[in-house]
């Protein structure tokens, strides 16, 4: 589909990036496979916490592949990574805190505890 360098006239200065075509294709395949595994995993009869952990890890792996390869963080200045992770970490931390705050049932008197799911 691509092989772009070849379409150029020889006069064009050839200081191009090396094509990442194959890397991208491979990563896309990995992503597709992981997605498949995720869907299957949900239906496999394994202990719940293990599945949850696996799902969280797998989606994290997909996440990292996309940002570091498709979004070139790997090849960019470190600062871009830091910048993005500031947002990511704060968002993650806020989410974590919110889920815990709502999980806590301390608002109720100790004599009448109604168990709520703690995330």
């Amino acid at each position, binding site marked *: *589909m*691509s092989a*772009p*360098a070849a*379409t*150029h006239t020889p006069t*064009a*200065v050839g*200081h*191009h*990036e090396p*094509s*990442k*075509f194959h890397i*991208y*294709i491979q*990563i*896309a395949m990995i*992503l*597709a496979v992981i*997605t498949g595994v*995720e*869907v299957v995993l*949900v*239906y496999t009869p394994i202990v*719940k916490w293990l*599945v*949850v952990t696996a*799902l*969280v890890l*797998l*989606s994290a792996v*997909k*996440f990292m592949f*996309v940002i570091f*390869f*498709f*979004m*070139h963080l790997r*090849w*960019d*200045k470190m600062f*871009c990574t830091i*910048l*993005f992770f*500031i*947002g*990511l970490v*704060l*968002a*993650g931390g*806020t*989410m974590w805190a*919110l*889920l815990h705050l*709502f*999980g806590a049932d301390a608002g109720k008197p100790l004599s009448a505890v109604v168990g*709520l*799911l703690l*995330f």
Partner: protein
Amino acid sequence: MSSHAATIDHHHDSTTSTGIPNKKLLWWAFLASDCMFFGTLISTHLVYRLNPPPGNAIPTQVFNIELTSFSTFILLMSSLLMALAVNAIQRGNVRSTRTMLLGTMFFGCIFLGGQVYEFGHFVHMKHMTLSNSLFGSTFYTLTGTHGTHVAIGVLLLGMMYVRTFKPAAGGGLSMNFLHMLAVAVAAGVAFIVFVPGMIEIIYGAGIGEFLSSHAVPLSVGAAACIAMAWFARQSSTVEFGEKNAIDVEAVGLYWHFVDIVWIIIFTAVYLLEYL
């Protein structure tokens, strides 16, 4: 810069203090901010999933995991095409860039069409609306916001695509506008009518019935596609080139981000429900 005028280093811009191009920095900062947007939305959704009010909709009875898995796959592949578009333009290949942009848009439209179908299905078949349960409220708002992001992405890609035809000689505003309109109409028809229709056909609706009941929008869409092809005839030299790689890359960052948000949503909102 002058002696190597034709060499463009895509990871370094010597006119800025850090070497990161301004646009790239802007987008990364925005994406950091967007993390908080989605963080808040996902928090809202999960908080109410974990503390559901009585009478809440039951997600697994509503969801259609096959369709969603397929959409997820499509979105991932659109990300691939986007990455290839950037790859192409960084190597000065405008034609391939166009193909990849169109492909990305097309996959984006399939995803959106899937969502249009999904929402319609949930509302009419599963009777879960935005307002009749808290789950509906948080679910539609979260995935709807994501869908809006995808739609904006399609729009940006469309603008980028049309821009690659901007003649080097200047002018061409009205052409550009008409071209853009054709792209927008084609995309609109694809995701509002065509893709949902196809999904219904896959689930067993009649083709003839679908074609006849949506004849008008489908023919408008077809006309728009033809117009697109017509506009895309290469007639003169264009201004767009390797120097615009940063523009494509910027839209690409946004597109990939939308993809990774979906990766999270897919796990947190859909898959975990099935446990």
